[in-house]
């Protein structure tokens, strides 16, 4: 070691200045830099603009007042119902999507035989992920307007289905979250080294026991990440909420006992409220649209933050060497 230390050692040279680069490289670097700055500015612009507009028009009372139809906007109430609607629809969609998605991911990752069937399931998940939500919405309307599904929405004597309710929108919107939860769960399962599974088998445990008691606890952070991602997508979805939730100003319960009256009824979400109150909507009350959009943005930013935290936590927990 001492011999090499006394020899003239070529140290790392100071970073080469981009000024010495060929023109094409300098242009490329400038474009990459500009693209990054553009995205940052766009994100900052959205947040700052919505914050200024939102804070300007947001009053605490708006969060706790039912919306009413009125020409005079000061009499038109707040957006309590859309907030409720967003929470209900997100909860419903997530509760439907999560068990199906987790089960599908376990089957794909841990069983997946025959291979042809597994490919088919994978393709199915990919197709669902790729279908625009307005197409899902129209498809849901066709299917759930059949008399068979009359119990899911306000219906006339059970012979015709209105095809619009929290239940119907929830079932359809679960398809928006489903591929994200499948993907995150599969990725987490595949990140578990095979010797961890074998360690469980070597203790005389069956595959089912291993999945339930070893693999599922290990992938919990991955599942949570997928669920948070999915919730973000559901909260932000507009098309399905407009088409399948009935788009009523207030949440209108159907018949039946609580909570089924509520779930069979119609309503609106923050996204549809923003749409309707924007200049293109019939409400045309931009101030309220800004205030509601600001609340919506806060919800989505919070969900994104959760995703980040959960993903970080996941790396710590499953820290096996390979």
């Amino acid at each position, binding site marked *: 070691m001492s011999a090499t230390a006394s020899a003239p050692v070529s140290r790392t040279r100071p970073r080469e200045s981009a000024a010495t680069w060929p023109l094409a490289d300098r242009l490329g670097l400038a474009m990459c830099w500009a693209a990054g700055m553009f995205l940052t500015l766009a994100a900052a612009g959205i947040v700052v603009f919505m914050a200024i507009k939102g804070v300007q028009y947001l009053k605490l009372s708006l969060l706790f007042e039912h919306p009413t139809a009125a020409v005079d906007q000061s009499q038109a109430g707040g957006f309590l119902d859309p907030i409720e609607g967003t929470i209900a629809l997100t909860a419903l969609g997530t509760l439907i999507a999560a068990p199906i998605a987790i089960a599908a991911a376990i089957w794909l990752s841990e069983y997946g035989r025959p291979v042809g069937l597994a490919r088919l399931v994978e393709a199915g998940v990919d197709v669902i992920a790729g279908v625009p939500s307005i197409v899902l919405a129209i498809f849901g309307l066709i299917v759930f307007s059949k008399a068979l599904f009359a119990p899911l929405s306000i219906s006339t004597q059970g012979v015709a289905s209105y095809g619009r309710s929290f239940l119907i929108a929830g079932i359809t919107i679960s398809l928006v979250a489903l591929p994200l939860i499948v993907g995150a769960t599969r990725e987490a399962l595949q990140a578990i080294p095979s010797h961890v599974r074998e*360690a469980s*088998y*070597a*203790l*005389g*445990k*069956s595959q*089912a026991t291993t999945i339930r008691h070893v693999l599922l606890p290990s992938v919990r952070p991955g599942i949570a990440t997928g669920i948070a991602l999915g919730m973000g997508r559901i909260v932000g979805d507009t098309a399905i909420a407009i088409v399948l939730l009935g788009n009523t100003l207030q949440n209108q319960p159907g018949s039946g006992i609580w909570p089924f009256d509520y779930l069979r009824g119609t309503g609106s979400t923050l996204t549809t409220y923003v749409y309707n109150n924007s200049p293109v909507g019939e409400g045309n009350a931009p101030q309220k649209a800004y205030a509601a959009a600001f609340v919506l943005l806060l919800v989505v930013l919070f969900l994104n933050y959760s995703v980040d935290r959960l993903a970080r936590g996941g790396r710590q927990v499953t820290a096996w060497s390979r």
Partner: protein
Amino acid sequence: MESLNPPPPLRRIDPVRTPTVPPDASVPQVPEPLPAPVSRDGASEPTRERMRCERVTIAYGGKIAVNAVDLPVRQGEVLALIGPSGCGKTTLLRSLNRLTELTPTAARGGRITLDGQDIDELEVTHLRRRVSMVFQQPNPFPMSIYDNIAYSLREHGEKGRRRPRRAELEPQAIEALTRAGLIDEVGDNIDHPALRLSGGQQQRLCIARALAAHPEVLLLDEPCSALDPRSTSVIEELIGRLKLEVAVVIVTHNLQQARRIADRAAFMYLGELIEYDFVERVFNAPRAQRTRDYVAGAFG
């Protein structure tokens, strides 16, 4: 490089006399050796044949990995499987509790017996409770130290069994941690996450987990290769004590380790068992030229 000329004839080395690292306060102290072995059926002879491989051949998709191996596994002594990479020793080890069956392309011929009974006739989950395994990489489950062992103790999937309470399992968990020499380090916080332990502690937890269900044979697949020298010496001493209670088979690439801890060694080459004998004879007076070359470091 240490000379490999004939070292003085050695019988088993007293583990206390040969610390591979200087004594240090931070080195976990191993408890006193356990009292003389008494097997479960009351017999107390030191070595007894528990498993036997008869013409065992294992192939992966037509490629033969283990070829017609005959090998006994005795309780009361440590059997080391040595040989160059890819010689089939890990495959042979995994076949002893039918873990090779997890590889879809693997096929096995020949007979393996446990106490005279063909292991293919045993329920695979029962076999693996009797013949347990510890892997190269420490792999505690992402749960508490206690839960890792409780998982091993519970008999999942047995119909009509109620889930045992913690009060019933905890003494057994403590016992397993004691046998694995880990209790002094984790005794106060067995509810801490297992993945927060150091690598050596994690590996001893894996050994404790494997021991908890009182297996009769313990398979160790290079259990120290991912560990530092200190943890290695702690685990080697542990293996020396365990062989009194369970039959131990260890795969190792470390010939010095095989000399230190094994009583018998089996040298494998290209899927065949070349030599099986007491460890000092394999190292000092091997019969086959291949063995002589390998233990002298000529290849590997």
